[in-house]
């Protein structure tokens, strides 16, 4: 039994070391980072929108992390914004950095497309606004009504993408999601510069 135990304990200790370097130390360092003063906490509606974003897996196609132009200039040149810093994510629980860019980066989508009508139309029918878009339509976040009622948020869908009769109305979820997307605006200056590549000392 001795050796079997030695292998298992040794294996666990090595993992513990990795946990120390990859989990504990980054946690200590990053949670101590300065939060940019211009960064606003999410409103309740935006938080709800964030949950819709999570539930429908937006992050499997969209990242939220523009990179340093010195490293990947395309990120800045496409207008996706300055490189993000840990402080930008202070209110993000869980983080939604993403690892795929089937669609564009969304870290500053609120600055690029500040119109809620655009966001709602795009969610209802992406290909109506972006030709050949492969983003799935989120029609299930909208209601199709014959008569508008007071307080309904009407979404004008250009033909032929909308229904033949009646109106398309945004649900609370669609509005919340659009508000969350509009809140994705990190165009303020970063107090801590994106860490430059340093030679090891």
């Amino acid at each position, binding site marked *: 039994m001795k050796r079997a135990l030695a292998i298992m304990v040794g294996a666990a200790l090595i993992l513990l*070391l990795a946990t120390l370097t990859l989990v504990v130390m980054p946690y200590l360092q990053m949670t101590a980072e300065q939060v940019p003063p211009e960064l606003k906490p999410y409103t309740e509606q935006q938080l709800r929108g964030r949950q819709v974003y999570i539930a429908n897996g937006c992050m499997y196609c969209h990242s939220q992390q523009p990179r340093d132009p010195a490293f990947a200039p395309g990120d800045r040149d496409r207008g996706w914004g300055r490189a993000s810093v840990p402080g930008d994510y202070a209110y993000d629980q869980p983080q939604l950095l993403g690892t795929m860019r089937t669609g564009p980066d969304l870290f500053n989508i609120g600055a690029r497309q500040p119109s809620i009508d655009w966001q709602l139309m795009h969610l209802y029918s992406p290909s109506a606004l972006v030709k050949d878009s492969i983003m799935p339509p989120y029609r299930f976040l909208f209601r199709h009504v014959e008569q508008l009622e007071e307080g309904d948020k009407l979404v004008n869908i250009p033909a032929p993408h909308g229904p033949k009769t009646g109106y398309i109305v945004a649900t609370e979820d669609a509005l919340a999601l659009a508000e969350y997307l509009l809140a994705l605006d990190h165009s303020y200056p970063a107090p801590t510069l994106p860490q430059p590549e340093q030679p090891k000392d």
Partner: protein
Amino acid sequence: MTPTIAVLLIITFLLSTVGLLLLIWSIANNQFSHGQAAARTIFSPGEEGHSEDPARPAETAFTGDNLDQTEALEARWIADQSSRAAVLTWLSSSVFWLLLGSVFGLMSSIKMHLPEFLAASEFLTFGRVRPVHLNAVTYGWASMAGIGVALFLIPRLFKTSLAGGKYAVCGALIWNIGLILGLGAITLGLSDGEEWLEFPWQIDVLFVVGGALCAVPLLLTAANRQVEHLYVSSWYLMAALVWFPILFFIANLPFTFPGASGAAVNWWFAHNVLGLWVTPIGIGIAYYMIPKILGKPIISYQLSLIGFWALALFYSQVGIHHIIGGPIPTWLVTLSIVHSVMMSIPVITVAINHHGTMMGNFGRLKDSPTLRFVWIGALMYTVASLQGSMEALRSINVITHFTHYTVAHAHLGMYAFLSFILFGAFYFIMPRLTNWEWPWRGLISLHFWLVSVGILIYVVSLTLSGWKQGLALLTADLPFMDIVRMTLPALKARTLCGLLMTLGHLVFAFHFVAMLMRRGKAKEQATLFRPSTKEVAR
């Protein structure tokens, strides 16, 4: 110098000192004495030189030349039978999740180029179907099949019966309930929101309990073991079963890691699922199957042990290469890149052993289904790992990150490496457990060709297309939608591959069920002791 770097330096210093002391201790105590004798522990007395592959046609099974040898083989047969209920439970479950995962994978693939496909239902939107695919194949197929094969190998490696098998059966039930609830939660939109960690943390508890129940037979059987030396496969399997619960538990702690530090934890975990969970299982199985089928021990046993500890040390720290260029400290990224490159050491030691043992025996790939699947899996491990080390370099990563290239790489690892080895292990194990022949050997070939052609086109098309996509994304010269259009042919090709692989899985599952139902021709003796087909013909 920041305090973090100071701490890092101190840890490095302490570690190297401890490492040096350990080295001195092991040399003084003759710990390096395991020679080729240790590599032979997987053979019964007199068995070396004889192939064991129950899935192979016209096989002359070794039944021993004298009483001692026959008794040893009978003891092994009893050991095999002891794990039967536990192994079959885990393996049958895994085949079900493989089918489900394949269907969801195929659905995701179609949705990537036909966005209107099944778009009306929120439950089948791309962003839910895709994580269902990932979680079903990772925690359903790969993990359950891996645990099943491990449960089969443990009694064989320890040369004793499996003790406490009912705990493992119980664990499988709980694990399956966890999968049903977890995948259901994702479909309902109740995801935890991080890749590889989508299951709500309340449901994760079930996996921790289910996995822990498998540790009970492992420990009980280890305590009863009848072997002097623990063969290298058991090192990998034991370590994997220790690592996974720790990883899974820490990464799923709710409300613990906010903001960007959550990303570090996310990828520390996700890469360790590959590195410290499925990889050691895959390598451990290959380390058993290849020498067993060839009837000759691996060529360098010492090297295999170095490979094991190097894997443990380096693989555990590579995860952050998934966020190169992201909003995390530079030292953290650099640490992971260094370890990713260092991974070439264990990869090369494993490659020398796996492929070196195969030298001069490649002809056997023609007749042995298990060897064909396992060796191709081992080869793809070498390829995928070296590719992974390259991908971690900043200059390569800046192109491949965020593209389909990474998706191709992930499938090269999880499918061409791991799943192939698991398929091979299935073909080896099932006849031993059920004492029944594979009913239609042609189906094994059909399965092999469907999945091989499928994964080949998959990896080649997405790798090329992903690379072009990455180069185009580096600058803003090309409008984004033009890049999307550029990737469409590869996305369509992937649907074709997904179809081929899913068909292959249907063939495999059908054959597996036929095996359980004892279809095909009957035979009088246990597979191990059957007379060779040739003799019968005479």
